[in-house]
Every structure is written in structure tokens, then in C-alpha cells.
């Protein structure tokens, strides 16, 4: 508005400069402005202020809204799925207030399974969460419906909604996106993933090569060997190291063959006649050959056991080699079944049994696992290889011997714990309330089953001085479990 601009210009420079002329003012206020100018009692500041006040009120009273009829229509498409119930929406609000990402993930998973959608009003808060937590994005996209897609197109921060085809992402995506695409493809079509990587390998920089190679760890197999072996001649040391690392996980690779050769010379099963030939005495002889190819020490095998170690250097080298070859090697080497291999090692080379167990875990030899479960030693890597029932049994056994270590490994499991183990673990945790505090349960609430709620009131600390602290933590845990229960009820009622 010109008159108002004129008022502001005068205000900027002061009334000693020329004040707005009558010609600058709207027709409707001219009469009043003339009356103000004619008032002899007013000084120039008062005249300016009074005219400014009139123009101010003229401006605010004469406001005409700006009209624009040709703006493109931008509406969200109709939803094809139903929204979640008000009860479920209420639980979501509480979870968002609680800022618990684990429970949010659970809620979203349940919502997705039930084929429901988030209420529109909750979308911005959930999208903000998913913006920071990439793991939430796939399920958030599923639960956001058409409203979410529509909303994401308007906010560049939420552009992760528009997912490109895998191939397009592989060609044009960011390094992180490309690595993620490769990882996903590797799960379903490992050969195709290898082809894709081979096609672009020469154009990748060293950092890119390293990240993409890490993605090849998923479902690494014998078909990868020729190409991976060729990477040992790469220029970049880190790329070479990663290729070697991958080769060490694929039976039949040159490095594993080298280890197997050395082991066949170092570990042998000796059968001797005893008691005048009536019985056979079996023993395992462990000794490195006089000359060892030095290249194995460059492949990651440590030569020395360390100054404080009670293990000899020779045994340490053999221990590492046993850990690095598939346990099936021993079936051929000793010409016996797996159960006997384990028995022989237990009887004649007990110090090497953990190495054999490590190898069974590393090469995911599930059929070897049962032979180690009865041992007093806890092998955490086996936990993920067991069925839910076996897992709970194994963890319960380990818990009584070494609670903290067992819990430390149990929290790495992806699936929810069984109620029996959860209650047993909580009974132990009650004695370390500073370690297993509110933050701990906030992080790992997805692992603790709702069934634990029935027992939790009876779980107390064995040390009276820790009871108050545990009580506070327990109350927090009860709240989290209640929310978990409400979430499950809301979608499964």
C-alpha cells in the first residue's frame, strides 16, 4: 500500500525530512488529513503521528485478501485401507510421547499386519521419527497410505518415500543406497548381485569398493570365489583385506585350502594297538611341521600367543587354523562322523574344542551344533542357530553359570525371548539395577515378552539396598510392557 510505504519512509528518516504529502494518501482519508494539517495546535510530529494512525487503521480495515484461482489442485488420493482404531491411535500417541523406538516399531509392524493405516494427524510425528531411524522407513511407508505418500512429496526431508526401482537406485543412488540395494539383491539373487558389482567394479573408487564388498558378505558362496580371488591383486590394501576376509568365509577358497593343508600336516589321528593288540588306543597328535609357509601369517593367523598367554605359540597357531576351516574337513581327515570328531577332540585335544565350535558357528554348520550344547562351555554364536525352544533351553543353562555374559549375548537375538528365560534373566537383573536400568529396558523392550508381566511383581533384588532402585526400574519396565500389551491388544482384539 503506497500510503503506508510513505508513512514508513518518513518514519525511517524522521519528521525533519518531508512527511507524506496529501497526494500520497488514499482519497478516503484526505479529508481527515486536511483537518489534521489545519489544526494549528499540532506540531509536525503530532501531525505525522495522527496521519500515520489514520493510514494505519485505513490499511488494517481495508484489507483485501489476495486472490489466486489458478493454483493447481493438490489432494491426497482416497485410502484403500482402513485407519487404525482410536484405541490403537491412543496407544501410538503414548508411545510417541515415551519416545521409545522399539515400541514404535512394534506398533507399526502390528498396524501393517492388521492392514490398517496411521491416522493422518499422527503422520508428521511418525515421519519425523523415520527420517532419523532408517530401519522404520519400510513399515512407515506401508502404514502411511496415500496420505503419507502425498505428504512426503511436499517435504523434501521425507523424500525417502519415493523408492526407485532397485536397478535405477543401483545406477544413480548414493553410496549407502547402492550398498543397501546390493545387500537386498544378494539375499534373493546372489549371482545377479555379483554380476552387477562386476560390471561397475572398475568405475568404483576405493571407498565404494570396500563398502560394496562388505555387502557381498550376505550369502557368500563358491560361485564368488574366482572373482574374489582376483581381488587379492587389487591396489587398495583395505579392499584386498576385505576380499581375503570374504574368502576366509567360503569353503574351498585358496586361503582355506592352505589352512587345511597345513592342518592335515599338523593334526593327525593316531591309532595304536594296546594290551597285546586286544584294544586300539586312539590319540590326536598336534604339532606344526618344521617348515611353515610364512604367507599364512600374512592372511590373519597370529604367530605368537602373547607374553601372558598360557598357550604355546604352536598350539595357538593350530587353534586359529582349526577355527578357520569348516568342521567338515575333520570328517574327511579322521574319516569319522561329526559326533566322533567332537568326541576325539574332547578326549584327546580338549583345548581345541572351542576352536572347533567356533568353526561350526562360522561356517554355519547347524548339524554340528548339538554336539557342543551339552558341554559346560557357553558358545554364544550358537544361540542364533538354534530353534526358539532350543535357544531358550541353552540360554537358561548358560544363565545360571554366567548371568551377565549370557544376558549380553541374549540381547543380540532378534526375536523376543521366551517367557521362562525372560523371567529368569529379570531375576538376575534385579541384582544389578544400575547396569540394567531404565535405559537398558527402553532399548531392549522388544525382547521381553508381555507374559513377563504376570511374574514381574514378584521379582525382587536379593540385596535389600538395591531394592528401591530396582523398584523404580521395574515400574518403568511395567509401563513399557503394558504399552506393548496394549499395542498387541489394540490390533488383535
Amino acid at each position, binding site marked *: 500500500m503506497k500510503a503506508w510505504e510513505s508513512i*514508513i519512509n518518513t*518514519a525511517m528518516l*524522521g519528521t*525533519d525530512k518531508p512527511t507524506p504529502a496529501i497526494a500520497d494518501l488514499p482519497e478516503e482519508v484526505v479529508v481527515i488529513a486536511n483537518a489534521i494539517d489545519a489544526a494549528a495546535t499540532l506540531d509536525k510530529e503530532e501531525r505525522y503521528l495522527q496521519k500515520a494512525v489514520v493510514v494505519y487503521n485505513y490499511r488494517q480495515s481495508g484489507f483485501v485478501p489476495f486472490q489466486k484461482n489458478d493454483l493447481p489442485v493438490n*489432494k491426497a488420493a482416497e485410502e484403500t485401507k482402513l485407519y487404525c482404531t482410536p484405541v490403537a491411535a491412543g496407544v501410538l500417541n503414548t508411545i510417541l510421547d515415551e519416545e521409545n523406538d522399539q515400541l514404535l516399531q512394534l506398533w507399526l509392524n502390528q498396524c501393517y499386519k492388521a492392514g490398517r493405516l496411521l491416522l*493422518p494427524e499422527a503422520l508428521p510425528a511418525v515421519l519425523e521419527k523415520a527420517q532419523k531411524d532408517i530401519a522404520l522407513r519400510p513399515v512407515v511407508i506401508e502404514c502411511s497410505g496415500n496420505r503419507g505418500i502425498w505428504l512426503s512429496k511436499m517435504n523434501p526431508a521425507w523424500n525417502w518415500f519415493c523408492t526407485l526401482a532397485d536397478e535405477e537406485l543401483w545406477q544413480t543412488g548414493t553410496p549407502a543406497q547402492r550398498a543397501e540395494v546390493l545387500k537386498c539383491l544378494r539375499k534373493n539373487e546372489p549371482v545377479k548381485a555379483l554380476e552387477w558389482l562386476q560390471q561397475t567394479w572398475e568405475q568404483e573408487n576405493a571407498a565404494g569398493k570396500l563398502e560394496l564388498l562388505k555387502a557381498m558378505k550376505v550369502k557368500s558362496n563358491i560361485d564368488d570365489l574366482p572373482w574374489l580371488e582376483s581381488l587379492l591383486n587389487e591396489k587398495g590394501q583395505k579392499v584386498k583385506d576385505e576380499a581375503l576376509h570374504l574368502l576366509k568365509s567360503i569353503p574351498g577358497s585358496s586361503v582355506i585350502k592352505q589352512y587345511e593343508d597345513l592342518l592335515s600336516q599338523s593334526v593327525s589321528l593316531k591309532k595304536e594297538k594296546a594290551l597285546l593288540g586286544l584294544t586300539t588306543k586312539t590319540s590326536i597328535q598336534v604339532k606344526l611341521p618344521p617348515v611353515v609357509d610364512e604367507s599364512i601369517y600374512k592372511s590373519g593367523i597370529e604367530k605368537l600367543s602373547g607374553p601372558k598367554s598360557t598357550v604355546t605359540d604352536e598350539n595357538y597357531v593350530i587353534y586359529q587354523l582349526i577355527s578357520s576351516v569348516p568342521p567338515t574337513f575333520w570328517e574327511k581327515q579322521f574319516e569319522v562322523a561329526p559326533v566322533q570328531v567332537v568326541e576325539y577332540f574332547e578326549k584327546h585335544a580338549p583345548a581345541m574344542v572351542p576352536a572347533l565350535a567356533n568353526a561350526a558357528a562360522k561356517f554355519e554348520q547347524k548339524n554340528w551344533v548339538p554336539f557342543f550344547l551339552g558341554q559346560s562351555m557357553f558358545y554364544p554364536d550358537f544361540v542364533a542357530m538354534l530353534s526358539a525352544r532350543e535357544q531358550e533351553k541353552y540360554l537358561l543353562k548358560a544363565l545360571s553359570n554366567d548371568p551377565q555374559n549370557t544376558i549380553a549375548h541374549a540381547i543380540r537375538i532378534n526375536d523376543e525371548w521366551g517367557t521362562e528365560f525372560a523371567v529368569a534373566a529379570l531375576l538376575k537383573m534385579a541384582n544389578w539395577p544400575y547396569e540394567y536400568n531404565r535405559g537398558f529396558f527402553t532399548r531392549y523392550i522388544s525382547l521381553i515378552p508381555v507374559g513377563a508381566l504376570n511374574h514381574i511383581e514378584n521379582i525382587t533384588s536379593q540385596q535389600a539396598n538395591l531394592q528401591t532402585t530396582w523398584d523404580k526400574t521395574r515400574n518403568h519396565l511395567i509401563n513399557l510392557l503394558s504399552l506393548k500389551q496394549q499395542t498387541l491388544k489394540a490390533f488383535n482384539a
Partner: protein
Amino acid sequence: MQLTEDQIYALAPDEASKKAGRDLANPAKWVSKGINEQALWGECQGSGSKPYQTQVDLSAIAFKCSCPSRKFPCKHGLGLMLFCARQPGLFTTSAMPAWVNDWINKRAEKEEKKVEKAAEKPVDENAQAKRQQAREQKVSAGIAELLVWIKDIVRGGILTIPEKTPAYWDNMARRMVDAQASGLAGMVRNLAATNFWNEGWQSGFMDKLLQLYLVAEGYNNIQNIDPDLQQDLRTTIGFTTNQEELRAQTGVRDTWLVIGKESRDEQQLTIEQNWLYGLKTNSYALVLQFTVKGQIPPLAFSPGMYLDATLVYFPSTVPYRAIVKDYNIIRQTDTAAVQTFTGWQQVAGYETALNSRLPFRSEMPVVVTSLTPVYYQKQWWLQDSEGCLCKISAAYNNIWQLVAISGGDPVTITVIGKENEYRPLGVWHQNNYKSI
């Protein structure tokens, strides 16, 4: 109980209370509980040997709890209400226990006594007139100084105003406090609070300066103007209105919807603004509450709450600020009765009419139907069905929630602001009013 979870959360004094209250909305925490038309009560097992006795007067939303917390409402009060809102089936209607009955009766007695006391209070009219005259003299003297100060500003130009030290503003604000013109002191402080880093600050600054001038100069001519406008000037300057006298008036009885609530701290005082909309009378009201820390505000409103209430407006050419004479919280009524503005043209006409009567009025809310949030020229606007646009205030930070609720469709929104810039306060969504 009529309140929703959102409305209960809106009663919480802070975020920590909300969280603590939520944790207590759990059946395991309550040893006993009950509800009837008048009250909601429960005994919550805390860390002490005896459970805390928590009670809520449902007719006026007042709280009492035997816990030592100084917060109001305490976490137990919030927890009990949330528990009842979430799982009403677990609360059986029963007679109030003695401890609840006593409190409810005492509250009723107290109200009666208050009325009686007000009626009995003798007023020394002579002394009152003398005090009033002395104050008016002080205010006139203060205003004379203020006008000189304003003239100095416009003589020198506002170009160098951003360079002024805080003392420059503070001295004049203090002078206005000495002159017993606290309203003018607030306006001076508001001038100082202009964001001088913003491009175009000059226009906003001049708006405020001219309002201040208008009030000051208006007071000098107060004898020649309409009595209601006189009252507006006096209220703006800082003269108080006797609320007991107001309470004695008939007032406006209506079904009032709480359309917005905001609190701000100002010099150890919490100022709570509650905006109400009368469904039958199609009128707007602002109910202010001033509390010092630790003091319990007499009214506990939250947006979306429906009240069957009598409000008495402060005398004004544009009746807006009001006190609540009596009220009862009621169930949601038919929102079809809401007579909204149909577009920005109509709002502009309404505001013009108000400005012509009271040019220095504060911003008032309006309920406008069929508004669509649109993004145009790198900012958000609200577009009406005629294609007219008004800006959404840049300071408004819930824009995505509003956009998500709308989905590109027109919605009925309560906005507050003036001319072409407004801030949304709430929206009707699926027949419910939601604060945003």
C-alpha cells in the same frame, strides 16, 4: 467423564507431569477408585505407607490430592483422569467416600461464602474516589512523558532504533509502571521485543508505536468519547475492572467451546489465555487467568472442551475479554450449530467493522470454514473456496499436522491474527475439535 485424553494432557502443568501422569494411568497403581456425576476419586499407592487420596471435582475440573507435590494438577490427578478416560468400564458409579464428600461439600460452602463476603464488604466510596483521582493524575503525567518520548522517536527516525540499548526501553517501561499505567508499560516492552533482524521490521514496529500513540493520545481526549471506548482505553492503559461488579451482571449464557489455550510467563506471572466460542450466540471470548508460581488457577480448561457457561464481558466497544460467571462441562454437542465465516472476504469485512470501532484492539480468533492449506511462493497459505489466500504465520510450527489432517481437502479452522496473516489454533476433524 467428558474429557478426552488430549484435553486431559492439556491440563498438565509441564511435560514431566504428563509423563508421570501417563505412567499412573494403570489399574495396578490404584488401590480404590470410583466416579459419580460430581466427582472422580481414587487411592494411589505411592512410596509412602498410606495411599494418596486423589479427587477431581468433575463439574468444574478442580483437583485435590494428599500427595506433597506442589504441581497442579499433580501426577496423581492427571493419572486418575487418564485412567478413567482410557478405561471407563473399570470405574463403577458409586456413592462418594467420606473424604471426597467432605471436600465437595467444602467447595460448595466456600463458593457460597465468597458470594456472601463480596456482598457484605463495605466500600468507602470517598476514599475510593480519592485514590482514583490520584491515579488518574499520575497516569496523565506519565502519558505526557510518553508522548514526548514517542515524538522524539519519530523526529529522529526509526533507522537507528535497533541500536538502542535495553535501558532505553526499560526506563520508559519503568516510568509507565511508576505512573500506574502497567498496560502502557507492557506496550513499551512489546515495542522493544520487535525482532529487528527481520526484514521489514519497520512496519511491525510502526504498528505497535502507532497503537501506543493512539491509546496515549486517546486518553488525553477521553472525556469526548463513547463510554465503552473510554473503558477500552482505561483497560488498555492498565486500569482494572472490578470483577465482582462484573460477576453481578447477567452475562451471556451459551454452550461455549474452548477453541484455544496458550500460556506464557511474564515477570514471575503465568498468563493463560483461553479462547472460547459461543455456539448459539456466535460470539468469541477471551478468558485470562493470571497465576504466580505455585498458585492454583481457578479454571482448568482444555481445547475441545464444551461448557454450559455464563460469561460476562468486560465493558468494551468490541466485547471480547470476559470472565466465567458459572460453568459446567458438558458432552460434545452438535457442531452443525457452529456459524463459521465462509471465507477471507467475510473475515476482512468483520475485522473492518471491529477496527472501525476499536482500532487498537488485540488479535481475535475466527472460525473459518472450507480453508485449504496450500504451498505457494515458498510459503504456506490458507485458501478459501473463492480462491482468496491468507498467509500462515511463519512462527506456526504445526503446519505438517494441519496439512496431514487436511489431505488437500478444505477444513474448518480456528485462526487468530489480523489482515493477511493468521495462526491456526484448532481444526475440526471427523466431527471433533482438535487443537493444533
